[in-house]
């Protein structure tokens, strides 16, 4: 009798394990174009399961680097915390030579900029280029005139097809806990629009949200890779897609004038995906908004639904 119960329990466990594995098997929705720029996006990273899922996806989507949207070492920040909150969870990726580019969040010691694995070069704000994409990593905690001046000077020098800015505080967000920073938006968005910034990634709110294009710019909020505020999102008409019931990370692929993205939960399911067309220099404001409102990825044919 006991043996029979044991056999049934073992079978059930094996079946559950198999179904879990099946659920976690990466289902890639990105086209893997030759010579494309491939990267991942995380906010508040210290989460083993999310990191494991990222490593698992990297087998099918070999991304070269990860951008980190701040609160990189959340809570206490002793040397041991760098190990348990970053080096250990992301060991598999670090060992494979994946580079991480961080920005400072309000929970970060600004001296994190000297931590080599964050690739900040000792600076609060910096820029780097990969393929035909120029990235600007900003310090939204302290957007002083010197930084605004630097950005205004550097953006026109971005000799790339795509310009992407990333920083911690969101210019648009419909999460209840923090929400958007209107003053930051008033200072940054005119510069973004003036210099043709294409995409902006932010964290801070512990949710995922894709915003419909604002003034011709695509905005994403992703602050829930390691911390989550369940049901914190209050979607509005500006929300293209929101998700606040699990942790997520994003995979991004840029090829030519298309940006493909896939947002994946800790459990491995795709919660959002799509393709964004690079804005033409003439497409601003309402035109871009109308063109991409409610867009979703239509598969591999590069079209909008």
């Amino acid at each position, binding site marked *: 009798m006991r043996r029979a119960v044991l056999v049934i329990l073992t079978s059930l466990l094996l079946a559950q394990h198999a179904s879990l594995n099946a659920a976690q098997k990466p289902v890639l929705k990105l086209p893997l174009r030759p010579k494309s720029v491939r990267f991942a996006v995380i906010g508040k990273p210290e989460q083993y399961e999310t990191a494991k899922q990222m490593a698992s996806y990297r087998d099918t989507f070999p991304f070269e680097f990860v951008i980190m949207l701040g609160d990189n070492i959340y809570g206490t920040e002793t040397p041991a915390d760098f190990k348990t909150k970053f080096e250990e969870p992301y060991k598999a990726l670090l060992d494979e030579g994946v580079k991480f580019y961080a920005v400072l969040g309000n*929970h970060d010691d600004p*001296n994190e900029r000297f931590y080599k694995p964050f690739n900040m070069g000792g600076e609060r704000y910096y820029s780097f280029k990969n393929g035909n994409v120029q990235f600007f990593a900003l310090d939204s905690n302290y957007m002083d005139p010197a930084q605004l001046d630097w950005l205004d000077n550097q953006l026109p020098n971005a000799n790339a097809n795509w310009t992407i800015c990333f920083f911690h505080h969101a210019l648009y967000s419909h999460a209840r806990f923090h929400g958007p920073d209107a003053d930051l938006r008033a200072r940054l968005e005119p*510069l973004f629009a003036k210099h043709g910034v294409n995409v902006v990634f932010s964290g801070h709110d512990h949710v995922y949200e894709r915003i419909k294009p604002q003034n011709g710019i695509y905005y994403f909020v992703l602050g829930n890779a390691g911390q989550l505020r369940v049901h914190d999102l209050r979607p509005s008409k500006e929300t293209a897609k929101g998700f606040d019931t699990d942790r997520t990370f994003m995979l991004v692929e840029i090829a030519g004038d298309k940006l493909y993205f896939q947002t994946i939960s800790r459990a491995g399911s795709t919660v959002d995906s799509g393709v964004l067309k690079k804005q033409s220099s003439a497409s601003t404001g309402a035109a871009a908004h109308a063109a991409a409102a409610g867009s979703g990825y239509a598969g591999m044919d590069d079209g909008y639904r």
Partner: protein
Amino acid sequence: MLTLTVCWANARSQERGNLDAASIDNFEARVAEYVKLHNTAKEKLARLTPTDAPSAIKRHEHELTREIRGMRRQARQGDIFSAGISAQFRRLIGITMKGPQAARIQDSLQRAEPVRMELQVNAVYPASVPLQSTPPSLLLNLPKLPPEVDYRVVGDKLVLRDVEANLIVDFIPHAIP
């Protein structure tokens, strides 16, 4: 670029107009004196460059803090933000926060994860407490600082913080209306 430069030049002249020139000069001289002290303390230490070892970063921060504290044993609240300078800053912040940007700045302060805590000059800003972001419109209207120090908001106080040592250099109580 030109527009922004003109805008900042205006802000600077507006700042000069709103904060009397003598107070600005006095404040800048006090900050320059502090930065000199900061650099003297830093010269005693090995230069911090990007490293794989977080312990080296923390050690540098602690050693710099210890050096600066040692050189400023008698530091008191008001050493840099004297009563006169504080009054001028309160007036300047009051004007900024009553202007057309007022609602935006207040909104920004509320959404930045506001913190409240007791402050002490020469104390380390606690690692467990988030660093509240400072609204950019407020920064545009305050006297410019060298990169060694920054302005931070804690409750209704305006803090002058040593960036690399993470040290509270001075603060103005009841600065934010």
